[in-house]
C-alpha cells in the first residue's frame, strides 16, 4: 500500500471513505455556518451598540482583538472546561474568533456614513432608529458583509482544528492522516477545506457586491 502512487491512494481512500468524507464536509459547513450566524447575530448588534455608546468602543474592540490573538488551538483548549469536548466547544471557539472582523467592520461601516447625510437626516426629523435602519445600516451593509466574508474564510480554515477536540469536520481526515502518516487522508481533508474556503469567498463576494448601496 505504501508503494502505491499518491493518486492511487487517494482514489482508494475516497472509494472506501466517501460517505465519511461527505459527512465530514457537511459537518464542517455546519461548524462554519452556525458559528458565523451566531457571530453575526452578536457581532453586528454589538458593533451598532458601540457606535452609539462610544465609551464601549475601546473595551469591546479590545476584548475581541485579544480573543483573536489567542492561538486557535489554545482557544479551543480554553473552551473545553466550559463546554466539554465536541461540536459545541468548536462552535463557541469559532464564534469568538469571528467576532472581531464583524464588529470592526460594522463599526467602520456605520462610522463611515457621511456626517452631512446624518445631520440632514436628523435635521429633517428622522428618529434614531429610522436613521439606523434607513440610512446607516443600508450604507454600512456591504462593509459588514466584507467583515463576514473575511471571518468566514478564516473560519473555514480554523474549523479544521475542531477535530482535535472532537468537533468533527474535515479536520478529522487531516488529523487521522497525520497521526497514521497517510498523506492521502491529509489531502482528502485539506483540499476540500481549501475549496470550501474559496467557495465561501466567492459566494460571499457576490453577496457583498449585491449589498453595496445603490447609487
Amino acid at each position, binding site marked *: 500500500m505504501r508503494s502505491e502512487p499518491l493518486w492511487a491512494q487517494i482514489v482508494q481512500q475516497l472509494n472506501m471513505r466517501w460517505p465519511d468524507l461527505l459527512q465530514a464536509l457537511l459537518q464542517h459547513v455546519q461548524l462554519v455556518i452556525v458559528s458565523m450566524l451566531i457571530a453575526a447575530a452578536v457581532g453586528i448588534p454589538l458593533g451598532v451598540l458601540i457606535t452609539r455608546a462610544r465609551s464601549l468602543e475601546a473595551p469591546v474592540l479590545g476584548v475581541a482583538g485579544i480573543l483573536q490573538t489567542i492561538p486557535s488551538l489554545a482557544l479551543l483548549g480554553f473552551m473545553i472546561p466550559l463546554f466539554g469536548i465536541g461540536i459545541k466547544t468548536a462552535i463557541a471557539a469559532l464564534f469568538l474568533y469571528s467576532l472581531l472582523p464583524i464588529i470592526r467592520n460594522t463599526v467602520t461601516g456605520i462610522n463611515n456614513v*457621511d*456626517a*452631512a*447625510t*446624518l*445631520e*440632514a*437626516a*436628523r*435635521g*429633517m*426629523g*428622522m*428618529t434614531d432608529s*429610522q436613521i439606523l435602519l*434607513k*440610512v446607516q445600516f*443600508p*450604507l454600512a451593509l456591504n462593509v459588514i458583509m466584507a467583515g463576514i466574508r473575511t471571518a468566514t474564510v478564516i473560519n473555514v480554515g480554523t474549523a479544521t482544528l475542531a477535530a482535535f477536540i472532537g468537533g468533527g469536520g474535515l479536520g478529522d481526515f487531516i488529523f487521522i492522516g497525520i497521526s497514521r502518516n497517510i498523506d492521502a487522508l491529509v489531502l482528502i481533508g485539506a483540499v476540500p477545506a481549501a475549496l470550501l474556503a474559496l467557495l465561501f469567498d466567492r459566494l460571499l463576494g457576490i453577496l457583498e457586491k449585491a449589498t453595496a*448601496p*445603490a*447609487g
Partner: protein
Amino acid sequence: MIKFDNVSKRYGNGSVVVKSLNFETQEGELLVLIGPSGCGKTTTMKMINRLVPHSEGRITIGGKDVGSLDPVLLRRGIGYVIQQIGLFPHYTIEENIALIPRLNKWEERAVKERVRHLMDVVGLNPEAFAGRYPRELSGGQQQRVGVARALAANPDIILMDEPFGALDPLTREQLQDELLRIQSEMHKTVVFVTHDIDEALKLGDRIGVMRDGALLQLDTPDRLLTNPAHGFVEEFIGKKRIYQNPDYVPITDIMRDHPATTQPYRTAGMAVSFMRKHKTDTLIITDGGGGLLGIVSAYDLHSVGGDETLARIMKPVASVLADTATAKDALKMIGKTPLGVIPVVDGGGKVVGVVTRGSLLSFFANQWSEEDSIEK
C-alpha cells in the same frame, strides 16, 4: 413666528457662543443671519430645530416653546438645508424627496404627485432625474434636490445654512434667483445663514448681523446700508460696498454743494467773468430765493452781445434731481443731459447742488482707489 427671548448658548467647555439673543421673525419673511466665521450663526439656527439645545432663554415658534415639543415632530415641521447638502446616496432623487412624506405615512399617490411637483418647482425635470442617484447629479442639481426635500412635507419654516456656499458663482446666483422665485410663491418663513454679504443683500427681507454671539443689528437691507447701527456693521457690510452699489449712494454725497448760480437780470458779460472766476462753463440761474429757473452755458454766451440779460439767453433745465435721489438716478440721467450738468433741488425747489459728469466720475474713481488701498 420664531421668537428668541434672551437666548444664550453655553458649551460644556464654558464658552458662551450665543449671547442673549432677542429677535422675532415675521411670518413669510426671509431672514438672513450674517457675520464672520465662528460668530454663532449655525448655532443660532440649530437651536431652532433643537439640533443644538439652548442653555438659557426661550425659543418659541408660533407661541409654543420648542423645548416643550417632541424634537422629531418639531423637525418634521421645519425644512432643513445645509451647505454639504447631505442627500441619501443610496436613495434615488425621488426617494430622497419622498422620505419625510413617506415617514409621515402619506398616501403613495400623493407622495408621487408631491415629488413631481417639487422637482418642477426647483427646476429639475422629473422624467430625467427622479430615478437617478445623487452622485449622478452636479452640485447645483443636488442642492436643488436638497431644497425640494426640505419643502417636501410642506413645512412653514425652512432653515438654510449656507446652502449655496459650496457652489460656483454662476450656479449660486441661479439658485438664489430660484429661491427668490419659490419664496415669492410659497412665502415660507426662512432663516438663511450666509457669510456672503451680496447674497444677504440680494435675498434678505431683513438681515441680522452677528458678531461674537451677539446680534448687532437686525434690519432691512436698505436700512442696514444707510443706517448701520454699529461701527462693526458698517465695516462688515463695507462702506465701500455702499458706494459700489449706486442704488445706495445718496446724491448729496456726490453733488457739488456750492454751485455757481446767478440771477436772470445779470448780463452776459457779467456771466462770462463769473464763469472764469469759478472755473466753470455753465451757470445755474435762480430766482432771489434760490429757486431754479434755468441754465446758461459758455457756448450760449458766445453768440450774444455782452449787454444781453441772462433771462433771455438761459435755457430751461431738462433734467433735475431731488436731493433724495441716488447716484443711480444721476447715472441714468447724465447721459441724456445736454450740458452734462444736473441741478439738485430740495423739497422746496431750491437749488442745493449740481451733479456733473466730472463729479460722478471722480466720486466713483475715488471709491475704487480707496478700495484698492483697503485691500492692499
